[in-house]
């Protein structure tokens, strides 16, 4: 049987999802997501909007939070701290990759 082909969709800033979708995708209750927003660990596109929407790139962080909550039994405040620190590590790793990319490979 010929396997079917599925289109993969980017999780980036061009797409948005609602609080409900974010809850479904991350496995986190909406209340926990609201707390993570209050603690500054997740950011809606417009925090002042009546219905929050999130860039699809937030799904990655929310799913990390969902796994950490399920596996390590973390409270929202501890989750927020962990997410912030993991985000900083990701940023530093990206910066390090960028700097390494600038180092010459060829030693003439």
């Amino acid at each position, binding site marked *: 049987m010929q*396997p*079917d*082909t*599925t*289109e*993969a*969709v*980017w*999780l*980036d800033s*061009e797409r948005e999802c609602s609080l409900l979708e974010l809850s*479904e*995708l991350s*496995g986190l209750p909406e209340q926990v997501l609201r707390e993570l927003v209050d603690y500054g660990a997740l950011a809606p596109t417009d925090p002042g909007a009546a219905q929050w929407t999130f860039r*699809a790139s937030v*799904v*990655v962080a929310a*799913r*990390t939070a969902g*796994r*950490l909550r399920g*596996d*390590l*039994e973390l409270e929202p405040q501890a989750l927020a701290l*962990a997410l912030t620190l*993991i985000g900083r590590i990701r940023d530093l790793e*990206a910066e390090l*990759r*960028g700097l*390494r*990319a*600038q180092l*010459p*490979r*060829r030693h*003439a």
Partner: protein
Amino acid sequence: MKYKDYYQILGVERDADADAIKKAYRKLAHKYHPDVSKDPAGEEKFKEIADAYQTLKDPDKRAAYDQLGRHHPGQDFEPPPDWGRQFGGAQFSFDDVDLADLFAGLAGGGRQDGRAGGAFRMPGQDFEVTVHITLEDACRGTTVDLNLGVPEYDEHGRLHREQRAFKARIPKGATDGQRLRLRGKGGKGLNGGRDGDLYLNIALHPHSLYRVSGHDLYLDLPLTPWEAALGALIDVPTPGGSVRLKVPPGTHAGQKLRLAGRGLPKPHEGAGDLFAIVQIVVPTVLSERERDLFKQMAEASNFDPRGHFRQEAEHAARHH
């Protein structure tokens, strides 16, 4: 079925109490959780630890596990005969059953009423896999073959691994660390719950010419001393084809020459930049004539690339 020693995996005695089991799990989980650990084997290790904890933290599952007796890890064994009858009749074989799936199947009374999860709508499990693609694939877009062992419940509520093969189209614009979602390609949902998703984590194979930073590319550009001094027109490879680059006179080593929009294409529009990093390369073997010309240049030139050394030494002498 292969035996797994859940007590040994968590590093606890067989008579450890619930608190000791939880403490051991948390300690190991902090070390090996894939969102925290850098250990490439961490994910597999964490799965083992989590499977062990899921069984031992539940008194009923722990009692059922203890009934299996003690065996060497990895040793083939048969559960008691009445287990087979409860799971799928007298002919049921445990040969291809994973111990962790067996105990996960006990959730919600799966073994008692044959319907795991009862009437709850249960979303299917999400999966994440890392997909390695080439830089050329990232530029053009590509299709990858995926083969996943997905746990699924059968009509009797028994959990088993289903091998699923399918193709996933990755649109152009990928770069290292980017994520994509394949809706509904994870585990099957139960009782009307949505099917899980599959998340792809893109990893680019190292390239022989380009180094990647986001959608920007870096390329070493070796120049001769005279090309750097006099300027030159150089053909530079880019993923989209060769481009003629004007090297200005007086170019120095380490200088980055930017080729705008010649990096990796971005998912929706535009592209990163390509930076050619100048290296000045001298021939290791000189002909007679080359040696003479270099000598003539050395005699004729007043250029002092280490002038700042002397200035620094003079400055230090003035202050001592």
